[in-house]
């Protein structure tokens, strides 16, 4: 009964999206009103939420009903809807806080969450919330209202201050380097199904905020610091932050030995692409950012739910302890397969459309070095994608539980099938996604829509491609090749056992270590750049920061020698300086 109720609750975002009529408004106190309204931008993110909520709720329904988790999940959904519908910053902040706290409490529901993870999660998210609060208050100070609309009449410095505060708040949520410290731990240790929601949806709220910024300050990116090549100079920095985040997170992902941690790092990397695209800021780039947000949501839901199924059935989460699950869990195998094809941005799945838009937007801005750096991140991603499918599903079973596992229960498989269908459909019809989902948002942001002549075609000023033709050609070629192969004479023989291998002239036995799970990618350390990245960690960065602060503090403490004469001299000096400054100021 409570499960049914819970599932109904998970459908509320869909109901909100479909049933939303007029905007709502309540007077709060003098001159300030709470408003809720559905703009095309919030509708886009609400659609992601509406799609994801029931798909995540379904795996959570399995087993005995965990009523506190259900309640918290309901609260989380409520908070996120409030956040997205907010027409003013007060509602936005309330929604943000509800989201932060309910997700924190949900994270604590996992038996694996340790103190350090919980602390880093709440500290970084509170940092984000307080930065947001500060930004909102400064915004009120400058403009005199709380409404989320174009802020007129601000000086450049006011805009920079606001953009910095808002930007830092949202970038923390997105998990940009070096503010990502909480991401890998919490995604790893959260309850397995909830990790999907954290990675796919909660992080997208940061993206929502970042996309909101251009509506607040429409000419901020373009007008603030002038233009660099054919793009906004202010965005150039943001774009590099995004790309460096993707590169570092991608190499970290390759070196992980735990499936969920790998996915967490890959989330950071994928959201780095979105940050880059928002930095470029043209309509092509924002289209690419939204497309990437859409694809990333679908892909990460799919992957985290598939992995949750594996963890449920085997109890193992490390690459070393799995292997050869393809025959035991075929549907999960296809889930992960489609997921990594989308994650790697391979045609014909829609990940390619998103990458294509972002690449072309970088070309359009003539930021070629960024393009090269992004290609590095997205090519290196192939390695961890391969690791993600090889280590659990291929090779040799490396633990007793991997040898006896069975396919995941239907609560896990139904969302996977739905998501696979959505991904393949979007891959076939990239133009449909642009028409239905991307263009309305771009028009609302007063940018040129991308436009697409047909469902299958993705068109940009730099050329495009046709998803239907691509899929048909590839499919026909595949059928043709397989058919021709069977027409040839000769027979196929299945190897007698998995140990029937060409193995350096020896016959391997069950004891021979044949699984290459966790070791994959270890040799990458021999490449100087990659080795350097992997030897350093953000924790090291913070530790160095602490050391530097201590040293600076010690320097400062030299002034406080305990000698009263020195104190008096110092006081006089400060007073004189202050006097000078105030005279000069007047």
């Amino acid at each position, binding site marked *: 009964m409570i499960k049914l109720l819970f599932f109904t609750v998970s459908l509320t975002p869909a109901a909100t999206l479909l049933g939303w009529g007029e905007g709502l408004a309540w007077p709060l106190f003098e001159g300030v009103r709470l408003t809720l309204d559905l703009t095309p931008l919030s509708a886009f993110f609400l659609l992601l939420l509406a799609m994801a909520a029931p798909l995540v709720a379904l795996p959570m329904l399995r087993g005995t009903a965990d009523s506190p988790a259900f309640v918290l999940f309901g609260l989380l959904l409520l908070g996120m809807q409030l956040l997205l519908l907010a027409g003013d910053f007060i509602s936005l902040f309330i929604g943000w806080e509800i989201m932060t706290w309910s997700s924190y409490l949900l994270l604590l529901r996992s038996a694996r969450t340790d103190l350090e993870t919980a602390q880093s999660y709440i500290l970084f998210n509170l940092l984000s919330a307080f930065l947001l609060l500060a930004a909102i208050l400064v915004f009120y100070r400058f403009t005199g209202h709380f409404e989320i609309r174009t802020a007129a009449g601000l000086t450049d410095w006011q805009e920079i201050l606001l953009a910095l505060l808002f930007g830092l708040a949202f970038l923390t949520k997105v998990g940009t380097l070096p503010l990502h410290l909480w991401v890998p731990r919490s995604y790893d240790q959260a309850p397995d199904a909830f990790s999907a929601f954290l990675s796919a949806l909660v992080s997208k709220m940061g993206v929502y905020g970042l996309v909101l910024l251009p509506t607040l300050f429409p000419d901020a990116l373009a007008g603030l610091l002038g233009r660099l*090549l054919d793009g906004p100079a202010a965005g150039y920095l943001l774009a590099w932050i995004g790309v460096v985040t993707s590169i570092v997170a991608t190499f970290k992902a390759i070196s992980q030995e735990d499936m969920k941690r790998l996915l967490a790092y890959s989330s950071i990397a994928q959201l780095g692409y979105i940050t880059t695209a928002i930095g470029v800021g043209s309509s092509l780039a924002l289209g690419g950012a939204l497309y990437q947000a859409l694809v990333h949501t679908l892909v990460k839901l799919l992957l985290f739910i598939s992995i949750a199924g594996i963890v449920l059935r085997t109890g193992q989460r490390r690459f070393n302890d799995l292997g*050869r699950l*393809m025959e035991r869990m075929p549907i999960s195998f296809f889930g992960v*397969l489609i997921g990594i094809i989308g994650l*790697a*941005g*391979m*045609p014909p799945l829609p990940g*390619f459309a998103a990458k*294509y838009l972002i690449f*072309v937007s970088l*070309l359009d801005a*003539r930021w*070629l*070095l960024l*393009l*090269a750096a992004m*290609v*590095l991140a997205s090519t290196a991603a*192939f*390695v961890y994608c*391969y690791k993600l*499918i*090889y280590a659990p*599903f291929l*090779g*040799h079973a490396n633990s007793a539980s991997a040898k006896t596992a069975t396919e995941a229960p239907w609560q896990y498989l139904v969302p996977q099938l739905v998501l696979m269908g959505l991904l393949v459909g979007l891959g076939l019809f990239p133009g449909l996604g642009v028409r239905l989902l991307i263009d309305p948002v771009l028009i609302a942001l007063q940018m040129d829509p991308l436009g697409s002549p047909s469902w299958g075609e993705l068109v940009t000023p*730099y*050329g495009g*491609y046709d998803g239907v*033709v*691509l899929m048909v*050609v*590839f499919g026909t*070629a*595949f059928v*043709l*090749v397989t058919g021709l*192969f069977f027409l*040839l*004479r*000769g*027979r*196929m*023989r*299945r*190897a007698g056992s*998995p*140990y029937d*291998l*060409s*193995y*350096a002239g020896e016959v391997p036995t069950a004891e021979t270590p*044949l*699984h290459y799970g966790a070791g*994959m990618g270890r*040799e*990458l350390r*021999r*490449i100087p750049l990659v080795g350097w990245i992997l030897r350093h960690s953000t924790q090291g960065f913070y530790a160095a920061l602490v050391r530097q602060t201590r040293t600076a503090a010690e320097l400062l403490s030299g002034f406080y020698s305990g000698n009263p004469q020195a104190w008096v001299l110092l006081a006089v000096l400060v007073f004189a300086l202050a006097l000078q400054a105030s005279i000069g100021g007047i």
Partner: protein
Amino acid sequence: MHAVLDSLAMIGISYVMGFLFYGFYRQFNARVQRRWGPSIWQNLFDNLKFFFKSETLSHGPMFFFGPMIIMAGAFTTVLFVPFLKDSDWLQGFSASGNLILIIYLLVVGPLGNALAVGSSGNPYGVMGVTRGLTRLMGLEVPFFLGLGLVMLQHETTSVHAIMAAQHDVAHWGILTNPIAFAVILLPFIATQNGSPFDVVGAPVEVYAGPRVEFGGRLLGVLMTQNMMMSIAKLVLVVDLFLGGAGNFLILILKAFALFLLTAAISMVFPRLKTEQAVDFFWKVPLGLGVLGVIAAVWLPWST
């Protein structure tokens, strides 16, 4: 009907050109090493021999489908590269694609085959795949940057438009954008799995490399797709830098000239370790690419 005939012609041409070029390569290589070497038809004979093996060992369904995916990927790649310019023929479906799509299509097949290698359960095969992916990570950065310079020069990702802009010898990409050509040349050799950037194949003293478990007809499929894919890549570079080809004869001539250049480079350098190759790509070709970007975009007189 036209599309079907055209596609079949493109697939046939790339196959024939593939085995002839590689037959020539073996002969050429032998002469440089003062051997007689096999006949130019040897690659065709080898390929057919594989296809008519009476028995093929398989390690399960995914092991079988991997080579099928890579073959389908090779067909698709060939069909998305325009072979001729200003012609209705040998175009395939290139009008529905673009340069970035082709670069990604080049890796779809190998990734599909990587699944097959993984499902064989041979760790040395997977090691080979990892090496291949590592090399890909190294070469793709300068390769893409070089092509990015070309796309920027012509402000399009369409191969047709880039080809059309090179209407005479003076406008060939290799002359109007020599830095881009220099940047992509070495990564291009690596995409062809040419020395000094090759990944060890199976038939060496240590069993390693993506193909270690494949034999019989499946190995034949892998060999065929490799030859066809090589031709697709050669034609792509001809389209981008050598002005494309007006007719079939010129196409063969230009592709062969390019092949000779890459073969000559391959022949005199021994293989690098994969990590060394990646480091090299990130230093020399990428450094050159960065200089190219500075010249093309950052300097005050650049447009």
